[in-house]
């Protein structure tokens, strides 16, 4: 990543550089001030302050900076982000450009890297580099405007089951059997979909409920038995046992600690 200002000409290299010989790279420029014109192939695109230019450096390109400007450039090997083809990006502060997760991420990451770079430790800088590469992948995927085809039927089933659990977590009759029946698969198929996942379906149901309980305990004054009911436990004793298993303390103690630490901070 580099920071370039036209007057005086200062190029500050921030994150680790990609060798200039790496032709298979993608560059992103976030224009801080002024404007720049990118010429690639027979296209010419103008970028103003706050806009994001994304282009493949393996195709010949030229930049024209008509006025005094300042820009932030990041170069990432195409192998890490996927191919984007020719210049395709600009994001407008005027709002003409559709908001997308990739654009938001890349722009925020570049802008804060620039503003806060000096306060970052070496480890934070490398974490930030990874985040930028990941955000660029997101941007590239959005450019392809396609649902990923990699999702296997197992992954899709696991995802549908997760989403079902999210929607029905408070239902006391929620079980693997219910999920299987409503998704029209056998319990066996459903369980096999979770073989490659980090948790089993039962663990997902439990963690979703406990997660929701934690949120209710902090944000509401509902009694523990009402919270239990609210997150799908018919029996408060079971709820307390499961909660204690996950958090190490009972819901009441957990709530006291978390509400105390919150007010202690304020």
């Amino acid at each position: 990543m580099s920071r370039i200002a036209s007057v005086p000409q200062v190029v500050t290299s921030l994150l680790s550089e990609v060798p200039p010989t790496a032709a298979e790279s993608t560059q992103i420029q976030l224009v801080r001030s002024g404007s720049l014109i990118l010429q690639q192939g027979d296209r010419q695109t103008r970028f103003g302050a706050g806009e994001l230019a994304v282009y493949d450096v393996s195709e010949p390109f030229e930049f024209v900076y008509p006025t005094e400007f300042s820009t932030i450039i990041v170069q990432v090997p195409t192998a890490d982000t996927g191919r984007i083809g020719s210049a395709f990006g600009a994001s407008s502060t005027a709002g003409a450009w559709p908001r997308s997760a990739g654009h938001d991420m890349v722009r925020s990451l570049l802008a804060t890297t620039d503003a806060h770079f000096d306060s970052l430790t070496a480890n934070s800088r490398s974490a930030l580099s990874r985040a930028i590469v990941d955000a660029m992948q997101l941007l590239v995927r959005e450019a392809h405007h396609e649902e990923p085809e990699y999702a296997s039927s197992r992954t899709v089933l696991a995802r549908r089951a997760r989403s079902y659990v999210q929607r029905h977590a408070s239902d006391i009759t929620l079980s693997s059997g219910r999920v299987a029946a409503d998704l029209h698969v056998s319990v066996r198929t459903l369980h096999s979909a979770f073989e490659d996942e980090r948790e089993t379906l039962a663990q997902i149901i439990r963690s979703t409920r406990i997660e929701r309980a934690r949120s209710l305990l902090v944000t509401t004054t509902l009694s523990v038995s009402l919270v239990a009911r609210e997150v799908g436990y018919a029996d408060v004793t079971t709820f307390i046992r499961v909660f204690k298993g996950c958090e190490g303390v009972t819901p009441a103690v957990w709530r006291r600690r978390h509400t105390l630490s919150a007010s202690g901070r304020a």
Partner: protein
Amino acid sequence: MSADPTAGRRVTVTFAPPPCAVTPGQRIEAGQPMEAGQSVEAVQSLTITGAQITVHGAFPARSIELGHVVWLTAAEQSVIELDAIRTDVGIGAVLASVLLPLGDAPVYSTTEQDRVAAIVRGLISAAAAERIEDGLFAVPSRQMVVVRAMQIVQSRRDDPRLSSQSIARQLGISVRTLQAAFRDSSTTVVRSVRAIRSEHEALSRVPTGSLSWADDQLRRVG
């Protein structure tokens, strides 16, 4: 029965009014806002409790849900939960700037949510490491080992030679100490490496296909 520390969680990001008092001496960075309503200066602090991230600042309260690819080891979680994260310096500033635009973003697709969540997860994990480097909090040494080891795992996620031995060597500790530290976080080195890799692999695959959307946008802009 204990919770799987590498279990994914759906994360809720809540944008709340500022807490009663801002951390003493906290400097609110004036910065150069890239877009109205997106500047970090509006964020005053960041608290993370479990899967609940609260961004305190001068904006209307709202809440969004991120995908399920957010998980931390128990050690990282404890270190993060010690105190609010400063948003005027370091990785906290980066984290705040990434979270802030999410509040008024359109509803992302599930895959997008997962990717955003994975990026946020990486930054939170780095924030835990930063807190340890700061040395402002007394953190048990086993937690320190896990937090540092997770940074190594993430920076070397593509390295086929990544192993308990190489992580231990990099940290200057014995493999036994490393494994004991992870056991303390109710997980193992192998499991954590696998979780980081599978998260990265699942999200980094880019489908091949036409660039119709890109060309479309270029025409509109150019």
